């Protein structure tokens, strides 16, 4: 199908993201990219677990004293909800409802921004306590793991914003449908990684 074709909700294909060869390649390629991201985060998790609570002799910081579950819980809720709203956005993309899609993407963006603000506050708070990046092996591993996730969130927010602004005036077509779909896929992946961070870093840190 051609990129220049104008669509109505009736002629719009069921899976617009895979209606062109390029779109199909993009979706397959992105799933494979996510597989390699999984290995990347697995390596970071393994490093974190090996260095958890390890520091110079007499280090006063430990996961039990440092982490506060209410804050981590609030962050989790924000990110999980944003994953749901991005599902709504893709639902409307498939129904050729551009306005609704943009609205839900904007909500996703705000929730993601909220998460990021809480994370920045959290890091700021820890640094204020003296738990800096160079304080110990534990602190370095913590900031690297959680910070890498935070960098992914930031990248996702920039990605969504660029997509929304670029396509604001022209609506949906078969050229940008795969782009929205893939961005949403990325957002879900970030969410799944956070579920593991919440479990392994925060829950197991405070309770385990």
């Amino acid at each position, binding site marked *: 199908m051609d*990129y220049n074709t104008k669509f109505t909700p009736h002629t719009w294909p069921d899976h617009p993201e895979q209606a062109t060869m390029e779109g199909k390649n993009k979706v*397959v390629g992105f799933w494979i990219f996510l597989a390699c991201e999984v290995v990347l985060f697995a390596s970071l998790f393994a490093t974190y677990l090996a*260095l958890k609570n390890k520091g110079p002799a007499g280090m006063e910081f430990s996961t039990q004293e440092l982490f506060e579950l209410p804050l981590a819980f609030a962050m989790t809720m924000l990110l999980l909800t944003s994953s749901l709203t991005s599902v709504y956005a893709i639902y409307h993309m498939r129904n050729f409802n551009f306005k609704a899609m943009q609205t839900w993407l904007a909500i996703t963006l705000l929730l993601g921004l909220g998460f990021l603000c809480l994370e920045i506050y959290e890091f700021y708070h820890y640094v204020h306590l003296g738990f800096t990046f160079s304080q110990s092996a534990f602190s370095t591993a913590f900031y690297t793991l959680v910070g890498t996730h935070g960098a992914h969130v930031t990248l996702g927010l920039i990605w969504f914003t*660029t997509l929304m602004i670029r396509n604001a005036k022209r609506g949906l077509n078969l050229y940008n449908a795969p782009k929205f779909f893939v961005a949403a896929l990325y957002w879900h992946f970030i969410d799944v990684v956070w579920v593991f961070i919440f479990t392994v870093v925060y829950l197991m840190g405070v309770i385990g």
Partner: protein
Amino acid sequence: MSSHTQKKSFGASVWDYITTVDHKKLAVMYLLAGTLFFAIAGFEALLMRIQLMKPNNDFISAGFFNELLTMHGTTMLFLAATPLLFAFMNMLVPLQIGARDVAFPFLNSLGFWLFFLGAVFLHLSFFMGGAPDAGWTSYASLSLYSPGHGIDFYVLGLQISGFGTLISGLNFIVTIITMRAPGMTFMRMPLFTWTALVSSALILFAFPPLTVGLVLMLFDRMFGGNFFDHTMGGNTVIWEHLFWIFGHPEVYILVLPAFGLFSEIIPTFSRKRLFGYSSMVFATILIGFLGFMVWAHHMFTTGLGPTANAIFAVATMAIAVPTGMKVFNWILTIWGGSIKVTTPMLYALGFIPSFVAGGVTGVMQASAPLDYQLHDSYFIVAHFHYVIVGGIVTALFGSAHFYWPIFFNRMLDEKLGKWTFWVFFIGFHLTFFVQHFLGLMGMPRRVFTYMEGQGWDQFNYISTVGAAMMGVGVVMMVINCLLSIKRPPAGRDPWGDGRTLEWAIPQPIPFYNFRQTPLVRGLDPYWIEKQEGNKEGMIYAEPLGDIHMPNNSALPFVISLGLFIAAFGALYSPLGVAEDSRTWAIPVLIIGLLITFGAMIVRSVKDDHGFHLHKEEILEIEEQLYGKGGKK
């Protein structure tokens, strides 16, 4: 673009190569870049061999020797073998599956430029205060406090070129999954494409741990991290694990495509279908899988304990089974065939016993108790050079002869090729065979000199003579390549026995490959058509129509250049271990990253629909290429 047949100015040609997304041009660029770094690393090896020629030699200093051995290993694996194999993968995979290009031509170009600029960055270390000197494995306990910027160059250079490799690997996987011509089922794919697929999957899972390892090292050395500093609670064994989780599959990433290349050469010149095709596919996948289960056999002496050592020892020995399957399949393909001993076939015949020798010493080291004796001795050096030179380099040389007509529409000289083979092959065995004995006699690897009277002198001398012969062989090979410029065009299927789709395509190959997508009717599709007397080459799955092609782009180069610039900023970071930070470090880092991300945003915002090549234009191009009437 269709203007490619006209003569261009030099500047326009350079611009064309910087912006190209054509898999065939990128293959040539990989070939040239890989050869350059192969020559550099080979020269480093010769310097080391001259130093070790006699005891107590003072040809080069101990520090420079360390830099040479580090750069030799790093360059050969990351910057010579990988791009040379990528050259063949780029050229052959789309042709073998009947595709117009790879799935993501833009990413293909990005992969090349990241690799190339990362490699250039690493080599700048020689001119900017010293190369890395902690071995290609760069163990953290050794590299963390290495003075100067050598290790920083290693970390940043490999990080950038590693991204390139990862991107290319991803691209090959998607290409093979989605771009196959009608009828090209998975079990009809040529074995080289199969090995390219499995090797790309290994890249996909092996390079992220390396990326993480390098990031940890980057933070520790340049930004005040504590991953490996035991006084701060760090642990250097983490580096060993991450490095070998990458490092062991890397061996298979390189050797599997080499197996694939021989699996193309051997049936062609035995003029017989590959014996046990499906078991070859199975063995390839199994080697890929087991390749991830054995990394700790590099760490038997680290002290992981007898249980871990036993598990990894058994897993390592298990890899010998699928590899053995492959060796027997090659032998049974040759068995009863109508054999033509051409230069590529000569390399294949030399490969089998050499590689088996390397494999057998590998199984010896898999036995953990014996490995305590062999570890860090010249026995190890002999083993992995038998595998890498005997397996990968012979594959590269043999396939260069075999596929030169696909790359350049010229044949290499057979007579010179056979001489090259014998000089190189004898030199290779002279160099490394005696090193087994040196290792068993106790000579440690990575030493810059040794005392006389330990019985090592003679063997070291022989080894150096062999290395010189290998050097002569490589020079002969390069001369052969250069002489091919003067030779007449080779035309389609110059060996006369091509079996797979890449031989069915007319020469010179137009930039859109097959003008109509071919229909694949079985394994070795071109052979089938030839058997049925099809003069046209292939039968086609579609009528002649418009062809959709991707646009050229300079953005991949700009994205890579941004990271190249950013790396200089990180190098002179104020928090770095090497205490010569610069005030401009952080701004440069930020500017570099801004260039990269800015270019990525431009790529995202600017629509790139590619262009359509119309039927009339196709006919016009073909008339220019093949003359009136479409003589091929």
